[in-house]
């Protein structure tokens, strides 16, 4: 699944480790999600969207 995590993270100047700490997952897992190698569950997707202050559909999706 495509996502905008990398863009949103860059906008906030957060490192992968920093974001991983905020959403309480391993940095490697965040890297896998960011690169589309793994799909997060809905609760985790919502958690990611929440730390960015965005909606889930703004973070994840084809566009």
């Amino acid at each position, binding site marked *: 699944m495509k996502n905008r995590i990398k863009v949103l993270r860059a906008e906030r100047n957060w490192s992968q480790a920093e974001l991983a700490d905020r959403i309480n997952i*391993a940095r490697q897992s965040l890297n896998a999600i960011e690169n589309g190698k793994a799909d997060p569950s809905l609760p985790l997707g919502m958690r990611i969207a929440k730390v960015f202050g965005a909606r889930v559909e703004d973070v994840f999706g084809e566009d």
Partner: protein
Amino acid sequence: MAYSRKGRLIFRGALFAVAAAWAAFVLLLHPSRNLVPYVAVAVLIVCLVLAIRAFLYLDEVEQARRLRVASYGAIFGVWVTTSFLLFLTIQPSMLEGLADMLIRHRPHLPLEYFGLGVMAAISAQCLCGLLASLVLRLKPAA
């Protein structure tokens, strides 16, 4: 149980420590063979509990990956074990040779052959799990 890097490291470290202690025990106390099976069962249970606790401290992405690796490893392990055991039944001299190499007394008891079979199965599962882990780690993203 929530993801915790510290918790995962503690339980994984404990797992490796128990496994290392078990290897040392077998090497040092191998002659007292009456004790080995009982300690083996205890060590296996402790290792299982530690592995489950370490697994529960992983995050959901890692848990899914580990389960995928374990599934592939288990299937491959069953195939390897079955092939190995079938080969030993076709070549009984190989079975005797293997038993002589690991247990240095004769005659061998049926329980010892059973123990060797279980050991072969568990070893194959562990090795195939590690192999699956390596292969899936190297596999490029779909």
